């Protein structure tokens, strides 16, 4: 079985986010494998360990993205593809999906795994667009996956519990942060990753040109989220419990 995992190199989310106009500042900012993608890599590796599979990581981004791919390879993925091209600067989710689809097709996958959303752009639309381009069904918000014969069985998180869904391969899944506990890249894994294949492709290698990846949307304005207002402080003079209960009732929490 071949599994492709979409991964992204993002500015370290533990550092303060800086903007460059309407875009996130990336140059000169410490980047990491998107923490959300670690769950996808781990999910693929667990399937590999259970059933045997060849796991390919696929990313689109500047050369620095190879760092994120190296981390995934150190965790245990078999190979990686990085699509880098000057024409992709400023690409939106739709263009990204188009590019990733072309790159992923080369791996002849049975399963494509992605995080629900990236930790930098947060559009959450790329996986759906990718599934559409692949012409595949998509199982979203997976909190548990297993594969039996050629059927994927997954728990899909909902607001009140979960759905159990089954789907025949090939399928695209998005996984949530709760699905597993991503492993550390072991020292042996890190050393082994240095020798694993990392293929670098440009748009032309995928039969695409700059016209095909022109952004379909443009961010025209950015504004900061309203800061949380400071809470209400109740000094207990005997009636605090009642006032807290009244507040919670008003908020329809109790």
């Amino acid at each position: 079985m071949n599994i492709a995992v979409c991964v992204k190199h993002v500015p370290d989310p533990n550092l303060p986010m800086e903007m460059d106009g309407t875009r996130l500042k990336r140059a000169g900012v410490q980047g990491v494998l998107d923490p959300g993608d670690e769950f996808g890599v781990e999910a693929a590796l667990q399937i590999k360990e259970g059933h045997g599979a060849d796991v390919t990581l696929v990313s689109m981004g500047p050369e620095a993205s190879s760092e994120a791919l190296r981390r995934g390879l150190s965790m245990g993925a078999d190979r990686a593809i990085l699509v880098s091209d000057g024409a992709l600067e400023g690409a939106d989710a739709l263009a990204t999906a188009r590019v990733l689809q072309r790159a992923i097709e080369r791996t002849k996958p049975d399963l494509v795994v992605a995080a629900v959303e990236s930790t930098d752009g947060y559009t959450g639309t790329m996986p759906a667009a990718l599934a559409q381009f692949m012409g595949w069904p998509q199982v979203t918000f997976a909190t548990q996956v297993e594969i039996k014969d050629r059927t994927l069985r997954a728990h899909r998180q909902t607001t009140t519990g979960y759905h159990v869904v089954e789907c025949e391969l090939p399928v695209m899944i998005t996984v949530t942060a709760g699905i597993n506990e991503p492993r550390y890249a072991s020292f042996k894994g890190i050393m082994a990753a240095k020798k694993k294949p990392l293929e670098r492709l440009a748009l032309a290698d995928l039969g695409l040109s700059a016209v095909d990846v022109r952004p379909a949307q443009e961010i025209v304005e950015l504004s900061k989220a309203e800061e949380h207002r400071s809470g209400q402080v109740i000094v207990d003079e005997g009636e605090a419990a009642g006032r807290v209960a009244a507040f919670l009732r008003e908020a329809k929490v109790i």
Partner: protein
Amino acid sequence: MLQETVRRFAVDRLLPGVEEWFESAEFPSEIATELGQLGLLGMHLQGYGCAGVNAVGYGLACLELEAADSGFRSFVSVQGSLAMFPISAYGSEEQKEEWLPRMASGEVIGCFGLTEPDAGSDPSRMRTNARKDGSDWVLSGTKMWITNGSIAGLAIVWAVTDQGVRGFLVPAGTPGFHTRDIKRKLSLRASVTSELHLDECRVPGEALLPGVSGLKGPLSCLNEARFGVVWGAMGAARACYESALEYAKSRTQFERPIASFQLTQQKLVDMMLEIQKGLLVALHLGRMKDASQLAVEQVSFAKLNNVREALEVARKARTILGASGITLEYPVIRHMNNLESVLTYEGTSEIHTLILGEALTGLRAFT
């Protein structure tokens, strides 16, 4: 990425428990297996399940481990550089295959028996001896201050023979071999320290390390381990410095953060300077070690300087934290107490000073 991996592991798995382990004086045995899974045990050795990282990678791992606690770096130093290294460098093929993979995974813990009650800085005076009896060797003697002693499945014991000092692999449970823990330590509490007793302990001929004789065997191991201390001490110092910096910015006296006072800034800057200098020395040594150009005097230089300065950083940090600095709520006094051990183990600062003195003058101050 190696450093990042160890740092994450330390934050996730070591720091949450370290205060408790230090206070209750225990080394958490499950951590040994996890360090093995991570590939930190014998990480700088090649083959037999070892990761084969370079000297700089080994150093960075030691740095991050000791930023959590010197006990963890000590554990990894002893396992990799004092127990696995001699097997890798001087062992027979059978010895390597039997022990190294299990030691790399953390299944078997090793210890290193050189120091004795009456032979510390002067190991040539060791009394532990081994005599040949048929094809066997019979060992007798006492080893002291042995990290991991009672939790070890394998002891590397150095003993005087009629062929000079030789190394022996003594598995736990061998008749005549037993250990006793050294209690009531106020330093390296999250680490096991023991005595090893060998009473007519009989091991087969194959237990002898064939590849080395003389004191250069154990001393070469110590030189490997000291290299890790050079980095580790800076990790402990960094943890103290970071704690002091954070505290100074949030602690208010005279209606302003104490970080705004010139005397506090002087301390913080001095700490930062020594840490950066120490790290540069460590990095330079690492690169020389990777180029096989590292001399023992250079390791002495760095061990002496970095541990001494780390202790000074810890003490300065303690003064910034005031009374808070003496509690286990903050990492500073724990590191400070640990560094008191690091100052004298793996060659005391006095001996390293005299090694450098000899290198400068050509005159040896000790025999």
